[in-house]
């Protein structure tokens, strides 16, 4: 066991986030000021991001039985922090005209990001549960933040009820596993699972956990909430939901199955394959008929997580690299896409500009913004020259390597279906018949922090699409520490 100060250093990113939460709370108590709160949040997130560099010197290190800080958790932690930062910049422009308290939003966002960090580093059921709840509970508030809008409130309630049910599943599953193995650590399950893998209680336990996590990842058949919540939530929150919460939960899922490999055996593995397949196909098929960008992106995220589940089914060391690359590219792309939607809807003035006709001819009004959106759509569709292609390349590679031919077929089929709606969305930007009601980004959007962030994301998506070696080197060097 390393000494206390080293352990605290290892937890520094999390601690900095918590301190920022307290700081923002106090500043609101003293003087309520939107810009101050946002700035403090940005500073806190950046400090946490910087502290990762310091932590990198001492990895891997186990901090109490609850957490393991290794390169793996730092990589995904960095993705989460960058995504939170992006959502903060978007939120600042978006919330400016909200006729309510605006500052508390940042507290919720920071709490949620902290939960994500905890979840990624967890190696124990207790930290898993705490992390997951800390991630989800603030999200209820964030989704319903524009509660004067009916659909935002409705989305918040819907998410809360269903998320609560999922948490119950998770707890029940953990309880069953604990009853059978007497251990709350993932690695402690290995012997019990390997010994009597056929035990119905164990399988039920793992199965229930998978159900709960699949709900958070909105995998089919636990996806029904996704489009409604994505549509109802304010733009920056949809972005947060689609990136931070997905990354954290997926990182946890991969760690769980890597540390306790026997958990994923037999029919459970087949079941996850079926879930992956169903998500790819159902997500893409349902997206076809959507008339709302945010719903469309919601369905598209279902499909993308389905592709990524292939890595879990395949397992092995290559899966960490695949998941790392895929999530990094997916996060950049999704943030960009939601970023454009948010910029078009900013500052807040009622329901977000989700309908497709708002985007008609955007290219001729806001050429660079539309170019960014085009790049993001191409990246989601996985066309070369964008980072999304790299992710798709990895997923197909791992599926081919493991001989999962039916999943390969699913990816190819799903991508082909997906093209239809990405392309339709894309071409709408370039049509030039006037729509009835137009909403537009403010004219100086490119000088705002949100605008700069979106432009940078587009540049990154193209850069890593053309020259991915730096990203690959970074991710492939990332190892997960053993139990």
């Amino acid at each position: 066991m390393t000494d206390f100060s080293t352990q605290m250093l290892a937890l520094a990113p999390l601690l900095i986030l918590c301190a920022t939460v307290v700081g923002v709370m106090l500043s609101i108590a003293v003087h309520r000021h939107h810009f101050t709160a946002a700035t403090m949040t940005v500073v806190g997130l950046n400090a946490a991001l910087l502290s990762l560099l310091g932590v990198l010197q001492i990895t891997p290190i186990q901090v109490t039985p609850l957490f393991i800080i290794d390169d793996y958790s730092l990589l995904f932690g960095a993705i989460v922090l960058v995504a939170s930062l992006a959502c903060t910049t978007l939120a600042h422009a978006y919330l400016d005209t909200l006729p309510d308290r605006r500052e508390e939003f940042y507290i919720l966002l920071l709490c949620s990001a902290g939960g994500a960090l905890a979840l990624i580093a967890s190696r124990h059921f207790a930290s898993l549960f705490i992390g997951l709840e800390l991630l989800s509970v603030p999200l209820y508030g964030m989704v319903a933040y524009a509660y004067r809008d009916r659909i935002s409130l409705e989305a918040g309630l819907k998410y809360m009820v269903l998320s609560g049910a999922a948490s119950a599943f998770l707890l029940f599953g953990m309880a069953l596993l604990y009853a059978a193995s007497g251990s709350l650590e993932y690695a402690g399950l290995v012997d019990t699972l390997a010994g009597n893998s056929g035990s119905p209680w164990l399988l039920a336990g793992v199965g229930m956990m998978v159900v709960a996590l699949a709900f958070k990842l909105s995998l089919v058949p636990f996806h029904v909430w996704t489009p409604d919540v994505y549509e109802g939530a304010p733009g920056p929150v949809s972005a947060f939901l689609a990136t931070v919460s997905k990354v954290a939960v997926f990182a946890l899922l991969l760690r769980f199955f890597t540390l306790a490999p026997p958990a994923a055996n037999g029919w459970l593995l087949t079941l996850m394959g079926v879930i992956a397949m169903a998500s790819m196909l159902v997500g893409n098929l349902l997206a076809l008929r959507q008339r709302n960008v945010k719903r469309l992106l919601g369905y598209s995220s279902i499909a993308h997580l389905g592709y990524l589940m292939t890595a879990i089914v395949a397992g092995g060391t290559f899966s960490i690299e695949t998941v790392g690359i895929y999530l990094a590219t997916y996060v950049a792309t999704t943030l960009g896409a939601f970023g454009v939607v948010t910029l078009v809807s900013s500052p807040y003035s009622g329901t977000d500009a989700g309908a497709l006709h708002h985007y008609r001819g955007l290219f001729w009004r806001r050429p660079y913004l539309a170019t960014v959106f085009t790049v993001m759509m191409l990246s989601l569709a996985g066309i070369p020259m964008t980072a999304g292609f790299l992710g798709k390349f990895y997923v197909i590679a791992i599926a081919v390597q493991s001989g999962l031919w039916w999943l390969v077929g699913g990816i190819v089929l799903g991508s082909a279906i997906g093209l239809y709606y990405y392309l339709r969305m894309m071409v709408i930007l370039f049509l030039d018949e006037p729509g009835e009601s137009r909403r537009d980004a403010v004219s100086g959007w490119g000088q705002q922090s949100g605008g700069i962030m979106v432009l940078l994301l587009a540049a990154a998506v193209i850069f890593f699409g053309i020259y991915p070696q730096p990203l690959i080197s970074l991710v492939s060097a990332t190892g997960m520490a053993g139990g």
Partner: protein
Amino acid sequence: MILCWLLFVPFIGGLLCWQLESRHAPAQAPRWIALLTMLLVVGLALWLWLTGDYSLAGGAVGDAPNWAHQIRLPWIDRFGISFHLALDGLSLIMIMLTGFLGVLAVVCSWREITNRIGFFHLNLLWIIGGVVGVFLAVDLFLFFFFWEMMLVPMYFLIALWGHSGSKGNTRIGAAIKFFIYTQASGLLMLVSILGLVFAHYSQTGTFTFDYMVLRETPLTGTIAYVLMLGFFIAFAVKLPVVPLHGWLPDAHAQAPTAGSVDLAGILLKTAAYGMLRFAIPLFPEASAQFAPVAMALGLIGIYYGALLAFSQTDVKRLIACSSISHMGFVLIGIYSGTLLALQGVIVQMVAHAFSAAGLFIISGQIYERIHTRDMRQMGGLFGRMGALPGFALVFVMASLGMPGTGNFIGEFLILFGAFDTVPWVVVAASGGLVLAAIYSLVLMHRVYWGTPKSEASLGGLDPREYSMMLLLLVLTLWLGLFPNTVLDISHTAMTEVTDWFAVAPLPSR
């Protein structure tokens, strides 16, 4: 280094066109920039042709091919992917063709495209850039990269500047159909590429996407066959081979003239190039096994395309369907595996590019004058359009394979070369020539002869149109009279392909 210039010039030119539009430059500036860019590409290609020696004797099978130029830079080390461009006779012919048709595409849209000129030329030039990349890449990843990349600008070209078709066929629908067909089949190719790479990895423990290394990979029969099918399907969609041709008539009919010229002239040829360059050398045995099926598909294509062409009422759809028929000959030539037939394939590809481009440009010019592509509304155009019907007659004759035109040389060499190995296929394919004559003459008759709808003159060709037509005509005739110009360049490359076929144990025929 010159290969990099060849590749990047169109991309840079395209960006320049786009930027010039949004600044307050003269409205015609993007056109001139695009024209200069394409002329530069042609110039570079011609320079390569004049200074290089492409008639080096081919080495034994397995030797490094005689790349006239190559450049190799590390790109993605993790998977052994390199930025590897190389040029031999085959690529050079294709690139010259690409550059030349690129010039035509720019010139023929001079008056047709009036809105968003800069963005149009961005897309046009990026298609050219992607195609040049396809013809130069010898790293499979890089090849796939360009193969997929060129679809996006083509999609925009059809979706944004296309014509809305008849019977509720929208241009966006056609564009999406085109994209989905080609992209989905492209993913199958990606799966095959990865299968091949992992097969190589499991034997040697190193990742590589290099064509030269991968083609040495020993594969068991079934795996090779399946992987070969992945490549074949991707190329078959683009060629197109008949059950997979659904996108082609729509895409051609709805595309603007420049798009049709590029599609028929170059994009279809990337498929034949892919078969010659990748599908056969990477999987010689499997390809030899598959050859009878491929040739049968080619035969079906010849007849089906011709029948389809016959029943069209839309001029551009008719020409598009005739492409299906012509590409059937190319498919038979490729899989017959004799040097003569392969040389014929090259000539046929170049000649078809010229004649199809000519016919598409002419239908574009007719459309500009009478605003329809429906042949039922035409008739009696001869004498009302200056020299245009005369040129049309020449290209129609070329398309039906009249001696003296390049198309005749191509078809003749293919049939003659394949006769040794597959006489019955050749006999059956020759019947297709009759059908070609029928639909070509029907096209001529319906459009230019018959009772005129009115006597008013529709205006002759202006110097721009006239010089385009004249250039194409000269080239078609040149190819028909001096085919050696092309045959000499491609001889070595084709000999290599023949050698690959020859090492494969041929199934009994």
